[in-house]
Structures are given as structure tokens and as C-alpha cells.
């Protein structure tokens, strides 16, 4: 690791492998994952269900030990430390609130177990109740709360002992859309206010893009790409990342001098020297503009379908070699502005729109 930055690693996974079962039926939940999460960062592990993101989170929490590899916290080896001796707390997907305790008792539980004086526990609990705006609910049983309120209690409970790292396992998946949006903002606010490192697990790419400082995209137990949301979106490392995050057109092409030649004969500009031979290009729908047919340098295409999405309209297009492309254009304020099925149009790509994918 050559880069020396002022920020230190809060969590480090070194070649972590987790295998469940043995022999032919063994499941490789994590396949040689190395990852550094920096202090004070909002880091998101993104991937479809079964991709290993929750397993990685459980290794950090201490609920599982890796089959091989190491987990470090603040540079200290914690691979085999039990969960109750790690300064790491978890917000569980099911919340896992203690049904026999009140809201305040739930929040104070961690501090009580740490043996903090009663007065400190009470003061900290009150502060956490204020932080998540649940002062009025302190003496309620958790079963009397709504889903969003339970979510806040789970957050406050995990934040109360001031962990070095807060782990969040798909905490918003049980909430309805409106509440989820609210909680996204709320989570981001809490992270900024407390300065605690958040490791957030989700399968929702939009959630990941809007909240994270950095995202790690996972699939099949492997970490495919790590980067900030902009990088992940604009420069996906491979086809999986490109298709999992946002919508993308995939087009086969051949590298030539000065660009990549599509099947329809058009030459598209790509990063020079980035690839050779037969490649796949990823082009985001919003990077494609529709222009008059026959305009100089435009790729000729025929409009096969129009799907109205409110602010956007998705234009389904066929290139001359039959390849399908979707372009997203802003819906005109009035009418359809002359676009009609079967119309011959020209396509232009924004600079840098065509990304060469590794498989």
C-alpha cells in the first residue's frame, strides 16, 4: 500500500475468505476480499442478495470468523475477537430490539453492559433519544413503535456506546419509500454529526449512490470495484457493475486507430490505449442525444419505441446492424416534439460516454 494519506484505515480486510459447508456442497460466501475502509467514511457495500456483502459485515462485527484472512480495526488484529469485545456496533436488518425493555433501556443496554455508571448511562441515553428525536417515547415498549421509530431506536442503541465503526445491515429495506427517503437523509446527518465510520450494506443502488462517500460493489463473493459514486457510475469496471448500477447499453465493438468501430460501421471515441481487439462498450442512456437524421458524424438509427417516464422519455432505437440502444432524453414541455415511432434519427454521444468494459 504505497499511498500515505492523513486518514487512517478504520477497517481493513486482508484476503478474507469465508466458506460455509465443506466438500462439493461448500458455499464460498467471500472469495479473497481485501478492502480498506477509512476513518470517518460512509462506506457502502452494494450488491445483489447472496453476493457476500452481509457476510463481510458479519466478519467485521465478529459474528463469523473468516475461513482464512484477517480483519483489522484501527490497525489492530481483531479477526478472532468476540463481538462483545469489538468497539463496533450493528444496526440489524430486523432491528433486533429487546422486546422486554423500554426504548430508553434498549438504548442504554450497551453502556450498561460496559459497566458505565448509572448516571452516565442515563445522560447518554437522553442525548441519544434527542439525537433521533424520540424523547417522548423513552418509556414505551418497542412493540408500541412504528417501523420508522423502531429503526431510530436501533440506530440510537448502536450509536450510544460510541463505536469506532457502525455497521448497518440493510436497515432501510423494511421501510416504505417515503420513510426510506427520510431515513437516508437522517442517516447521512447522523454520520456527519457523529463522525463515526459507517459501513452500510444495501442492494439498492440509488441508496448507495446518494448516501456514500465510497461504494464497494460485490458479486459472487468477490469485491468487483471500489470507488466514489461518480467513479462507479461513470467508469464501471465491468459489465456486472455497469448493469447493476443504473441502466446501460452494451455494444460490441472492435478497437481501431482513433476509436472503436461498432457493428453498424460508426467509429466511437474511447480512451486511447485502453484496450485492443474485440471489446464491449458501455454507454449510459442519458449520454446519448438524438439529432436530425443525416447530420454529419451522427450514428444513423431508427426509433422503434418511446416510453414516457415523466421527466424523461426513453427512446428505444435500432442501429443499422440491428443492435438495440436506449437513449434517455428530457421530455419536451409540450407534446412529443416530432418524435414518432419509425422515425429515422441520428445519435450523438457525449464526450467520454463510451466506456470500455473488462469482463
Amino acid at each position, binding site marked *: 500500500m504505497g499511498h500515505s494519506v492523513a486518514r487512517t484505515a478504520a477497517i481493513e480486510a486482508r484476503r478474507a475468505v469465508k466458506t460455509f459447508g465443506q466438500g462439493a456442497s461448500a458455499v464460498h460466501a467471500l472469495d479473497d476480499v481485501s478492502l480498506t475502509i477509512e476513518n470517518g467514511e460512509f462506506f457502502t457495500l452494494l450488491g445483489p442478495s447472496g453476493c457476500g456483502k452481509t457476510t463481510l459485515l458479519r466478519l467485521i462485527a*465478529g459474528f463469523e470468523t473468516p475461513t482464512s484472512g484477517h480483519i483489522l480495526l484501527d490497525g489492530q488484529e481483531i479477526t478472532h475477537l468476540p463481538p462483545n469485545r469489538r468497539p463496533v456496533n*450493528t444496526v*440489524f436488518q430486523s432491528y433486533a430490539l*429487546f422486546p422486554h425493555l423500554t426504548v430508553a433501556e434498549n438504548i442504554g*443496554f450497551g453502556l450498561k453492559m460496559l459497566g458505565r455508571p448509572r448516571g452516565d448511562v442515563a445522560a447518554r441515553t437522553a442525548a441519544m433519544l434527542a439525537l433521533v428525536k424520540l424523547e417522548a417515547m423513552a418509556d414505551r415498549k418497542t412493540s408500541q413503535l412504528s417501523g420508522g421509530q423502531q429503526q431510530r431506536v436501533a440506530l440510537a442503541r448502536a450509536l450510544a456506546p460510541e463505536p469506532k465503526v457502525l455497521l448497518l445491515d440493510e436497515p432501510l429495506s423494511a421501510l416504505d419509500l417515503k420513510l426510506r427517503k427520510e431515513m437516508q437523509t437522517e442517516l447521512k446527518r447522523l454520520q456527519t454529526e457523529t463522525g463515526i465510520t459507517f459501513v452500510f450494506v444495501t442492494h439498492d443502488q440509488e441508496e448507495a449512490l446518494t448516501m456514500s462517500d465510497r461504494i464497494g460493489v460485490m458479486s459472487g463473493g468477490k469485491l468487483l470495484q471500489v470507488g466514489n459514486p461518480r467513479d462507479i457510475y461513470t467508469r464501471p469496471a465491468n459489465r456486472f457493475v455497469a448493469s447493476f448500477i443504473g441502466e446501460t447499453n452494451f455494444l460490441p465493438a472492435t478497437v481501431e486507430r482513433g476509436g472503436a468501430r461498432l457493428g453498424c460501421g460508426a467509429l466511437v471515441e474511447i480512451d486511447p490505449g485502453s484496450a485492443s481487439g474485440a471489446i464491449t462498450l458501455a454507454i449510459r442512456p442519458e449520454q446519448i442525444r438524438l439529432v436530425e437524421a443525416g447530420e454529419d458524424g451522427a450514428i444513423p438509427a431508427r426509433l422503434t419505441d418511446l416510453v414516457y417516464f415523466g421527466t424523461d422519455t426513453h427512446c428505444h432505437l435500432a442501429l443499422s446492424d440491428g443492435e438495440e440502444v436506449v437513449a434517455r432524453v428530457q421530455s419536451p414541455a409540450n407534446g412529443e416534439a416530432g418524435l414518432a415511432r419509425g422515425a429515422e434519427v441520428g445519435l450523438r454521444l457525449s464526450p467520454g460516454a463510451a466506456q470500455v468494459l473488462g469482463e
Partner: protein
Amino acid sequence: MSAAEKAAEADTARKGWLLSTPALILLLVGASGPLMIVVVYSFLTPGQYGNVVWKFSSDAWTGIFLTQDIFDGTWHLADAHLSIFWRSVKLALMTTLFTFLVGFPTAWFIATRPPRMRAFYLFLITIPFWTNLLIRTFAINQIIRNEGLLNTALMGIGLIDQPIVIIYTDFAVFLGMTYVYLPLMVLPLFAAIDRFDMRLLEAGYDLYATRFQVLRQVILPIVKPGIIAGSILVFIPALGAYVTPRILGGGRNMMIGNFIELQFGQGRNWPLGASLSVVLLLIVMVALVFYVRVSTREGRSG
């Protein structure tokens, strides 16, 4: 609610009462009836050859706690009676505690197995019920008596020269009752643990609780209804146990049940037997009220 709906609801309630009449009659005649007879008998005079003479007497009640000296007529505390009560309560409590200590890990083990294995283990737990209690108790007798399996084996391998005297002691009664009542503790505990959300264990560990603290602060409070149900199911029959102390305790280590039986048999003192029965019932009721209060206090606190 409209008038029609109210009328319909009242009608349903009436029908409900009507339908439960057979059960109510059965309860009245089958449960309260005999109980009333017992209470009435406890205030009568014993007949010479058993039965009762219809003449009011409170002797049976004073006789529980006091005995009159045959020679000088002074009253003394009935030590023998009190020690029987004390032994009964002590053995019943010990049995309850020990069945819990053994039953809790057992129930936990079963509840954490895969569903198919769970059914199998529960089936194993119920196997003892297939055989008569008397036969099972005699089997224990065969194991622990001086020339029994245990002592023969221990002497055979040379661990002891003299048989360990277990049979006809309080310990033998305790052992027998623990064996007999263990399933009654395991089953309600299993039901409670089965409902327990195992994810709470991780939440506990995550929040710095040690294994013991998770047990004490998370598991036990949540499965408490099962613990209370199991304790009631064990304590009540253990307190009135009759067969086990008779076969394993011999004549000396009587419990209330045996003492009551004695009054109706050789003792020929039906009123005393009746009053003892009422006292037994009262102890059970006190225990029940205590349990109910403990459990509802917990429920109200939140």
C-alpha cells in the same frame, strides 16, 4: 355501533354462555362439589372405624399444628406435622429448581435443532409417559437401592466397599420427583424458547454483553413465561406427590400426600385428612398467586 349490531353481539354472548353450560355444570359438580365435601368433613368428628360422625368439631384444624399431651393435657406444637409440611415444600422447591437447571439446557438444545430433529427429540421427551408412573418409580428403586444396579456397579469396579445409601432418603424422593416431572418443565420451556428470536443473541453480544449477561439480561427475561408455566406444572404435583415418596422415601420420609393418605387409612381420622388436604390446596394457591403477581408486575412495567 348500531343497535342491530349491539343486539347481535349480545345474542352471540348469550349463545356463548349457553354453549359453555355443560362445562360449567361439570366444573361445579366435578370440582367444587368434592372440594366442598372435603371442607365440610374437616369440621366434623372422626368415626371410630373411619368415616365421620356428623358432629361439629374444630379438632382437625387445631390438630394440624398442635398436639395435646395424653398425660398432663398441655398443648405442644405438632413437630411431626410441621416437619412433613416443611419437607414437602422443600422437596417440591428443590425439584422445581433442579428440573429447571436440567430442563433449560435440554429445551434450548431441542429448540435450536433443525425442525425435523426437533420433533424427534420432543418425541423422546414424551416416551416416559408411555409407562405407568408406578412402574417407572419402581425402576428407579431398582437402580438406587442398596443391592441395586448403581451400588452393585460401583462396588464391582471397586470404587466403594459399602453400598451408598440413597433409597429411603429425602434425596431419593428428590431424585425420583426430578425424573418424573422433568418433561413437565421441558415442554413449556421449549415452547417459550422456540418463540425466542435468536437474532437477539447477536444484538446482545454486539452490545458488549458477555455470554452470561446475554443469558441473564436477554434470554431469561424473555422466556420467563415458559419458566413460570414449567415451575407451576412441576411444583404443584411435586408438592402433593404420593407415589414417589411412598416407594423411594419409605415410611419415614413422608410428604403431605402420604400423610393425608395415612389419615384416611390406618389413621382413621378423616377430618384431619380433610383439613390437611385444604392446607395443601392453600399452599398451592399461595404459590399460584405469587407467580401470577410476579408475572403481571413484569408485564405492567412497560
